């Protein structure tokens, strides 16, 4: 039988439900807070065990708190995910059918792109061709905004990417639905969407931006770790790994992504 959950575990789980995803440093602070609130013993190095207790109890419902890495900065996060696809899970009422279709089209475009992005123009265009129900441009913009607010997509200057939460939950799905398109990072061997590709057409390996930054750190003349060709990309800087900061800025930026830049480019 599974170990029973204490009140501290339940509080941790509820916070995960409300937030969907939290950074490692947030998880540590939350772990402490939950234990202290309910007078449970707090062992700072036992976060993983603490989460394991929750996961064992969640298993019958096909829910899980899973760890994953942000493609933006390589920081670790915890996300509460659903692991099953059934008649029941498809009754989710968060999005309408055409909104879900738009989301899948977004994934198609992102997976099909070299650097893991989909431009807002392409997305706005595919909204006219939705099979479930067509969407107007304004509506599409609104729905895309909602995906960003709900932390399924990230948006930067009119470019949409899959969020850390989305990748953590959808990784298996992506591997099975896009077997020909999905790429693994040559350095960390995890799935990679946003990254750099070796320019040598016979090689073409892909590496996360943050893995590139770490791998080539301090090298003046970077060469591909696979084919040894010159690595013809700008080497990104290593991001300061202040995880809580990175996620909080994303949150605060989420509600009102400016559409002014996208408008300008489409204006005529």
């Amino acid at each position, binding site marked *: 039988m599974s170990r029973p959950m204490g009140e501290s575990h339940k509080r941790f789980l509820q916070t995960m*439900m409300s937030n969907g995803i939290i950074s490692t440093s947030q998880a540590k602070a939350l772990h402490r807070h939950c234990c202290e609130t309910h007078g449970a013993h707090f062992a700072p190095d036992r976060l993983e065990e603490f989460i394991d207790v929750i996961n064992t109890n969640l298993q019958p419902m096909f829910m899980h708190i899973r760890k994953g890495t942000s493609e933006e900065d390589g920081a670790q996060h915890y996300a509460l*995910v659903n692991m099953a696809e059934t008649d029941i*899970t498809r009754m989710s009422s968060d999005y309408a059918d055409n909104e*879900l279709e738009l989301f899948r089209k977004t994934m198609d475009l992102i997976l099909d792109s070299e650097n893991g992005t989909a431009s807002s123009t392409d997305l706005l265009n595919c909204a006219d061709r939705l099979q479930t129900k067509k969407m107007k441009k304004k509506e599409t913009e609104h729905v895309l905004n909602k995906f960003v607010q709900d932390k399924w997509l990230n948006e930067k200057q009119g470019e949409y990417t899959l969020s850390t939460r989305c990748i953590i939950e959808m990784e298996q799905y992506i591997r099975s*639905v896009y077997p020909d398109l999905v790429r693994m990072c040559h350095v960390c061997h995890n799935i990679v969407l946003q990254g750099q590709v070796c320019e040598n*057409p016979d090689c073409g390996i892909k590496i996360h931006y943050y893995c590139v930054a770490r791998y080539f750190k301090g090298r003046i003349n970077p060469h591909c770790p696979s084919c040894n060709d010159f690595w013809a990309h700008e080497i990104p800087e290593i991001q300061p790994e202040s995880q809580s900061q990175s996620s909080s800025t994303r949150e605060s930026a989420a509600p009102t992504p400016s559409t002014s830049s996208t*408008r300008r480019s489409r204006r*005529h």
Partner: protein
Amino acid sequence: MSESKRKTSRSIQEEAANGAVGRSRPERSADTGEEDEGAGPSGIHEEDDDPAQRREIRSQYRDLINSVQQNREDMLNPANNKLFDVLEEANKLFANVRQAREAALDAQLLVLATDLGREKASQLHAEGSAFDPSAFAEHLLSFMGLNRLEEEEDGDANLGGYMPPDAWQRLSKKAQYCFKTAPSFHYMFGSFLAEPPPPRQRVERQRKAPSKEAKRIMPTQLKKMEESHQEATEKEVERILGCLRSYFADDPQSPILYYEFVVDPNSFSRTVENIFHTSFLIRDGLARVYLNSNKLPCIAPVEEGELEPGGANARHQCVISISPATWKEIIEAFDIKEALIPSPKVLSQEG
């Protein structure tokens, strides 16, 4: 039952039913006036049946009923005596009431007043303080961070001041401690049927993967307006303006069709880039787009000095979208054989 009596009782009912509406007083008294003539009640003293006086009484009753209904909160306010004043007023009116129709109105007013009186009494007799929604609203406004100093002198003193955009968020943060709301669980995986994407997509990718040149020609990320790109954009915009001006100079009489100008029949991505860059010409007032007699959009350069003052107001915006399919349709429809805007030099060298 006598004819007249039936008539009277019917009109009492009518009054009772209509009375509460009581807003369109002038019309009402007009059409009741007609009825009065027909009613010609028997057995009623002459002096009791002066239609003008009766109309006047009814009208005053309706005014009173109206004012009670509309100032309900005011009437209930423990700080004043308005309800009592209303009843005084009604007593005065009732002194002149002789007939059932007026009496019915009086009854209606009394029902209203008793209702209010009961509510007011329950307030007064309740131990402790009474709750005043207006005061509540004022306290909430302060809590939500209303800045009363700004725009205060603007006519409506009630709605002056500046509310910060996070006002409701601020209230919610505190108010949610009253709620035992369960958090809800949201997910993306499993909310739709897992299906592979249409095969067309994969074919496309395989086709374009080997050709490096093809990749280069793909529309550069139009949204990225970083410094280096910005400069490139400006150059490209100038180059296109040059093209437009030279075509126009060649034959100033014949209009240049917009689509013929921007569409590159050999490259969809070049077409998109042309549309993008041309849009800057229009935004900056260096070119204008208008419809010709066939309602087709045409483009022409704007001569220096031709720039109309306050032009920004007269300008219209529109968004156009173009897909490979519509691009092909346009090429066919306009029978476009070659690009009016040649590819930029860098690309033509490589190609």
